[in-house]
């Protein structure tokens, strides 16, 4: 007899597949069959729910385009998927894909608890990613701007007394100078992304004394907002290298210049000169 067979037989000689064990086997065979449809149906329903949820949570487009021009106009909002390229978002997505792969294996192996766990984790990751995706707001009209202010990247909630001083378009940039009754002056900076003017950022102030001029480095332009009741007819820009005088015809003035640092004065109808912005109150926007 083979030594291994003999050793196993000797060592386990006390244990046999007894009549009692045989009886248990018969009991298992005669046991009413469990409903095998429940698990696949539950799984299918879960996956379907996830998909429906994904369609609800990921509305890809909610915007309209107007006729093409050099810089096409577009209104509304779109999901901003560019954030998906951030390292943690990538990690999350790769994890979700791996989990889905494992979930398929688990389904094949009928490891239902693992499947359930995977579904929960995948939903959690998807929801987390969804929260971080956010929206891209395209602005054409004042109504678009109002929507962007209310729900946009810097939501301020309820808006009352919205008043636009000026909206100005310079090449790929658009600037809106406005105020609400709850907030001080706001300067919104919009940049064209190939499809429309998208809100990039905004300078919000609680008081107009905190307002700054903005130097747009990209297009080498100095943007000078005027305070509401400032009776300014002319602007004088002075620095060590140059002096510029510019007549004012709107609350927002754009002056092309290569220098970022200026002292800005306003001149009223009587010729009185007032200091508007010191060099430190000029904010540089790098795009």
């Amino acid at each position, binding site marked *: 007899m083979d*030594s*291994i*067979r003999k050793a196993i037989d000797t*060592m*386990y000689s006390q*244990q046999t*597949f007894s009549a009692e064990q045989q009886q248990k*086997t018969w009991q298992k065979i005669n046991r009413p069959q469990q409903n095998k449809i429940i698990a696949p149906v539950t799984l299918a329903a879960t996956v379907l729910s996830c998909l429906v949820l994904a369609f609800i949570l990921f509305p890809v487009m909610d915007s309209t385009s107007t006729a093409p021009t050099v810089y096409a106009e577009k209104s509304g909002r779109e999901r901003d998927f560019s954030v998906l390229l951030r390292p943690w978002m990538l990690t999350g997505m790769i994890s979700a894909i791996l989990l889905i792969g494992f979930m398929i294996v688990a389904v094949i192996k009928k490891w239902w608890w693992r499947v359930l766990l995977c579904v929960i984790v995948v939903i959690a990751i998807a929801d987390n990613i969804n929260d971080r995706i956010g929206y891209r707001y395209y602005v054409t009209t004042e109504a678009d701007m109002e929507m962007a202010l209310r729900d946009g990247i810097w939501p301020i909630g309820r808006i009352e007394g919205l008043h636009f001083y000026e909206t100005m378009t310079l090449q790929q940039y658009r600037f809106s100078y406005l105020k609400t009754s709850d907030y001080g002056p706001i300067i919104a900076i919009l940049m064209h992304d190939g499809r429309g003017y998208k809100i990039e950022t905004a300078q919000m102030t609680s008081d107009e004394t905190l307002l700054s001029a903005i130097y747009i480095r990209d297009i080498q332009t100095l943007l000078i907002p005027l305070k509401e009741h400032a009776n300014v007819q002319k602007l004088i820009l002075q620095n060590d290298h140059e002096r510029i005088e510019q007549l004012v015809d709107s609350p927002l003035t754009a002056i092309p210049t290569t220098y970022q640092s200026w002292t800005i004065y306003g001149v009223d109808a009587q010729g009185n000169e007032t200091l508007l912005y010191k060099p430190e109150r000029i904010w540089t926007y790098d795009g």
Partner: protein
Amino acid sequence: MEKQQKDERLTEAMRIYGNYLLKLCYTYVHNWTVAEDLVQDTFVKYYEKMEQFREEAAVKTYLYRIAINHCHNYLTSWRYTKLQIIDYWHKLISHGDEPEVQLLAQEADAFLVHAIERLPTKYKDVLLLFHFAEFSLKEIAVLVRLPENTVKTRLRRARQMVGVTLQEEGFENGFDS
């Protein structure tokens, strides 16, 4: 196939292979209750698929394959992992070998069986199928779905590993020197 005929065949299979399968399963799971459960499941599965088998040799191959598959599934299951963790925890607390193992280690057969029990699963499969279930290399190759040469290699290594394990205990090549 009629129910009575199926019942008779299962009874016969349980009589012939029951004890062997139980011992085989135990070498994998090291727990008699679990081994009994796995053997019962093996026979249940055989009963469900009985129509497929005409030859007695096919039945033996099928039963061993299903039993080994059940053992593999059990060893990768959460239930087993949980038991392992609990067992490890108990060992940590007790700081010593189990009395049963110490007692068994007093005999040569015990050394051999203990060495087999500690083999990695893939080597244990071929070693037990060859030596315990007495399948040929060709049959094992079909059963474990591997090339015959791989089976040979694994069997050789399994023997070496059992030998090496026993050498550590004062034996050579599986026999008392």
